[in-house]
Every structure is written in C-alpha cells, then in structure tokens.
C-alpha cells in the first residue's frame, strides 16, 4: 500500500511510530519528526545554496582565473633524467635558454612538483617506479612526454625492454617530437601546456 504522503526513507526506517500507525488522512510521519528532519536538512541545503552562489559568481569570475593563472605560470618539473633528452632538459635550464624565465624550476622531490617531464626511454624495469613517482605527485599534475622514446619508443621501439610510449603508463598531456628535442622545443612544449591549462580551466 502507498501512504498519502511520501515517507522519507530515513524516517520510515528509523521511527517505529511511522510504521506502526498508518491512519488514513494523517501523515505517516509525525509533524515533529518532519520538522527535525527538515532542520537536519537545512544546514547542508543552505551550505549548498551558498556555495553555488559563490560558485556562480565569485569563484568562476575571480578565484578560478587567479588560481589558473598561478598554476600555469609556476610549473615545477620533476628533476630527473631518464636518457638522452635529460641532457637537453638540463641545457634548457642553462644560461642560453634559462627555463626559469617562465617560472619553471626543477624540484627533486615529487611532492613539490606539478609536472613530470619524461625525458627519455622508459624501460619496463623503471615503469613501476615512474608510476610511483607520478602517484606521489600531488594534484593537479601534468605529464609531458619529451622526445620520441617517451612518445612511442623511438629508435628502441622494437627492443624487448622498452615501453613503447609512456602513455601506456601515465596520462600524457603534451608530446614533444624530436630525438632529442632541442631545448627550444622543450620550452615550447611547456608553453603549450600552459595554453592547455588555460583552455581546460584547470
């Protein structure tokens, strides 16, 4: 049988009164209990309304763009070198290219990084360590596959020990072609990633 007033499921399960006294014309749940439930629901609802108010106004117009600007202008890559591209990665931080101009500062601890630049061939032996490092990085985080090896195995694609592309292991945002890519190409990749972050509004 159906009760005239839709019974909140929590109250029906909780209160013995609601189940025991199904009289016609009377709400299945006593008034006081309904009030109690309403008052319980008021706080989350108010919170939700308030946050949605903020979300529609302030957050999307002011807060989000600021954090988006901050996030894309301060990308800390993980300081590690896998193979050949690592040398060009280092050269990009050298005097001639100076990636620090864009606020790109390599950090040694994955906890402080936003960006993992996979600069070289990924082998199956290092695969699970790479995944561990990626998981140790706090959100939000991005991955750049630098060079042909990280993109798709490169000249070692046929080798028995090489992962044919790091996108088999972690999600990749930007691919940089080259074997190895020149430092300009790496900087361009980072700038592309900045554009990507701006477009995706992350």
């Amino acid at each position: 049988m159906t009760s005239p007033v839709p019974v909140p499921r929590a109250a029906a399960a909780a209160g013995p009164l609601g189940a025991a006294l199904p009289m016609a014309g009377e709400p299945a749940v006593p008034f006081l209990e309904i009030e109690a439930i309403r008052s319980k629901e008021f706080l989350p609802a108010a919170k939700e309304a308030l946050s949605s108010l903020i979300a529609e106004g302030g957050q999307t117009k002011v807060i989000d763009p600021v954090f988006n600007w901050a996030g894309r202008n301060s990308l800390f890559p993980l300081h590690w070198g896998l193979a050949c591209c690592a040398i060009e990665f280092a050269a990009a931080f050298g005097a001639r290219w100076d990636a620090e101009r864009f606020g790109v500062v390599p950090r040694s601890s994955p906890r402080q990084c936003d960006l993992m630049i996979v600069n070289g061939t990924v082998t199956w032996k290092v695969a699970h360590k790479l995944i561990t490092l990626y998981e140790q990085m706090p959100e939000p985080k991005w991955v750049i596959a630098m060079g042909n090896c990280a993109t798709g195995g490169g000249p070692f694609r046929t080798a028995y020990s090489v992962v044919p592309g790091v996108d088999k292991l972690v999600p990749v945002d930007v691919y940089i072609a080259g074997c190895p890519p020149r430092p300009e190409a790496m900087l361009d990749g980072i700038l592309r990633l900045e554009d990507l972050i701006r477009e995706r509004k992350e």
Partner: protein
Amino acid sequence: MQPADLEAALRPSVGAHLLGTEPFEGTAGRVRFAREGALDVFRAVKDRLGFRHLSMVGGIDWVDHREVFYVVWSDDARQYALLSTDLPAADPHVETASSVWPSANWHERETWELVDIQFDHHPDLRHLLMPDGYAFHPLLRSFKIHEPEDLEVKSRHV
C-alpha cells in the same frame, strides 16, 4: 707480441687445454682453449703473460654452440689479447674468471643474463640489466624481436 709468443708462453703450463692460437687484427692474437682448463688458462695469462687487466667478457650464440670471449690487456706489451672458448649449447657453463680478475664479476653477470652462459662459482650471479626474475635471455638467436603492435591502445575518441 705475436700469436706464436702467446703459444710459446702458454704451451708449457696449460698445453693440455690449449686448442690453438691464431692472429687477430689489432691484438696480440686469439687464444682458443677448452673450457675444462679455463681457470688454469686465466691464471697463466694473467701471471705468466702479464695481462693483468680484463676489459670485456662477452658471449656469442652460434646456434649450434656458444662462445665466450675475454679481452685482456697487458700494460707491458701495450696490447690486447683475446681468449675464447666454445661451449655446447645444451650445457653452456664455464668456470668464472672473477676469482682471477675481479672485474669479470659484472661482465659475467651480464653475459649470463643476455646469452645464458652459466659461470660456475661466480660469487654473485644475479640479474644486472633486466628486472629480477626475468625469464628470457634476449641475446640468444632464438629470441626474436618485433614491432610492439599488440601494445597499441586504440584511442577512445575515434
């Protein structure tokens, strides 16, 4: 130093295990020996001929048999020499050189790993380049490499 000199120096002490010497371009020559006398040959080459520096140990899979070769260097003669021995493919093992030249340690680990040649009495014969527990020996001719087609991940957006 010429192959004849190598032969002359080695014949008296380890002649029983010596299979012959031959010229090898760029080195003093190549010494072929039987694997039973490996340790004696190593000692003789190091002590009597003065090849105190072991540069390289490598293995070749000739399908019907396997070959181990050692490259040694003498500071007095300023020359390299090659030692090599053939092992049957069914039972490829040879005495370790790391008791004579400690530098053979890692080279033999690598050779065991890649070409599947057992080195008896090796102090530390475990995987060096491949992960622990890797079951294959990639540099054998029977180990084929191919394009990794089966690993392709088709894009979901297509």
